[in-house]
């Protein structure tokens, strides 16, 4: 069956696109990917999504997004797209060896936490190395942990981790944070938080069996290294767009963010639209992602109207 719309991704952008295309009777199929609900499902309180004056938990907000989209007929599948072929319409999307086709594709695959790129880091991911304090902080009660990064998310993770950890060391490669003032103040005023300035993580030591036991830290001023004992390492050094599947077919910037035409969600291919963090390196908010998801749905609907006259 050739679909009108396939949406790849299920964060605020993808599910808002699903809601709008469902209400336009386009019967959208949503591939939720490996993290249904997207990045908000690994956060706790969302305090800046309008309409929730008391705040709302990230996973709960995304359940509501999904319920609202499915109520109008969006089909959401917990499946991960493994390959696409956009060389000509209908566009093809594969989930392992199942092939799906559609007249329009809305890409809303978002972004993932950036990693340092160390071999030990990928080996110990889930065994003491984490990119999600709210998921894994619980396992570090009374332990010492390291947070790598200097932005808002690093401050947020560090502050959150003080609920469990006995000590949190923020490792930052510069001599000042780029995080917002309010977050920096909150972090620096916390007695459990210490900072290693001008320092980078050169290696992470440990085993899958026993977890992390220390990191090698390198002072960027004098290149001296030292071993620092710790039980966990949390990465908060920014994000990369999830566009590996698409960069061959679609124009993107050097970092991989998909280019969209000014004031729209159109990509360089007719009928392929991109919304949310996958094309936004600037705002990266749930509400802006939802807004651009709505734009993508309207853009797709207009495109289909023109196509069918």
């Amino acid at each position, binding site marked *: 069956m050739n679909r009108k719309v396939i949406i790849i991704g299920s964060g605020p952008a993808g599910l808002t696109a699903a809601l709008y295309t469902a209400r336009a009777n386009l019967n959208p199929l949503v591939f*939720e990917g*490996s*993290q*249904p*609900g997207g990045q*908000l*499902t*690994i956060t*706790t309180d969302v305090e800046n999504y309008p309409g929730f004056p008391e705040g709302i938990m*990230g*996973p709960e907000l*995304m359940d509501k997004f999904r319920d609202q989209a499915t109520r109008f007929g969006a089909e959401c599948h*917990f*499946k*991960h797209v493994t390959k696409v072929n956009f060389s000509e319409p209908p566009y093809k999307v594969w989930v*392992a060896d199942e092939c799906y086709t559609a007249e329009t594709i809305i890409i809303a695959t978002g972004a993932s936490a950036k990693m340092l790129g160390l071999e030990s880091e990928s080996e110990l*991911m*889930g*065994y*003491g190395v*984490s990119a*999600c304090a*709210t*998921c*894994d902080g*619980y*396992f*570090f009660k009374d332990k010492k942990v390291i947070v790598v990064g200097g932005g808002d998310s690093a401050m947020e993770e560090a502050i959150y981790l003080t609920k469990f950890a006995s000590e949190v060391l923020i490792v930052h490669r510069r001599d000042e944070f780029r995080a917002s003032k309010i977050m920096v103040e909150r972090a620096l005023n916390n007695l459990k938080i210490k900072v290693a300035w001008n320092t980078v993580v050169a290696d992470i030591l440990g085993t*899958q*069996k*026993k*977890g992390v036991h220390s990191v090698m830290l390198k002072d960027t001023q004098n290149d001296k290294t030292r071993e620092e004992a710790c039980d*966990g390492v949390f990465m908060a050094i920014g994000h990369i767009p999830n566009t590996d599947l698409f960069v061959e077919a679609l124009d993107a910037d050097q970092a991989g963010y998909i280019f969209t035409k000014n004031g729209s969600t159109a990509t360089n291919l007719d009928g392929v639209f991109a919304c949310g963090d996958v094309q936004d390196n600037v705002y990266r908010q749930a509400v802006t992602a939802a807004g651009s998801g709505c734009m993508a749905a309207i853009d797709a609907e207009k495109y289909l109207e023109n196509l069918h006259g």
Partner: protein
Amino acid sequence: MSDNVKEITSVNFETEVLKSDTPVLVDFWAEWCGPCRAIGPVVDEIANDYNGKVSVGKLNVDNENQLAMQYGVRSIPALLVFNNGAVVNQIVGAVPKNRITDILNTVISS
């Protein structure tokens, strides 16, 4: 939760997991974990698909902190595959169903 999924606790861990006649897939999870909620229904499906061949259990780390620590769980969801009383494989994070079933198939055929 599927009828084919057992709740695993420190009380029944030995009989249901360590002394099980079949391989056992244990899903370490918690209420507050978003990715766990995503993978929960997949684990239920697997319990139905593999009924009789693999037993499937869910272990709430909030209630059974000791078992989570004992098995070195530092990130959830963590899916541990036990066979003859020992961990023979494990997957951390919400992964597609076929990654889990591939592992189960290997364990069953070995």
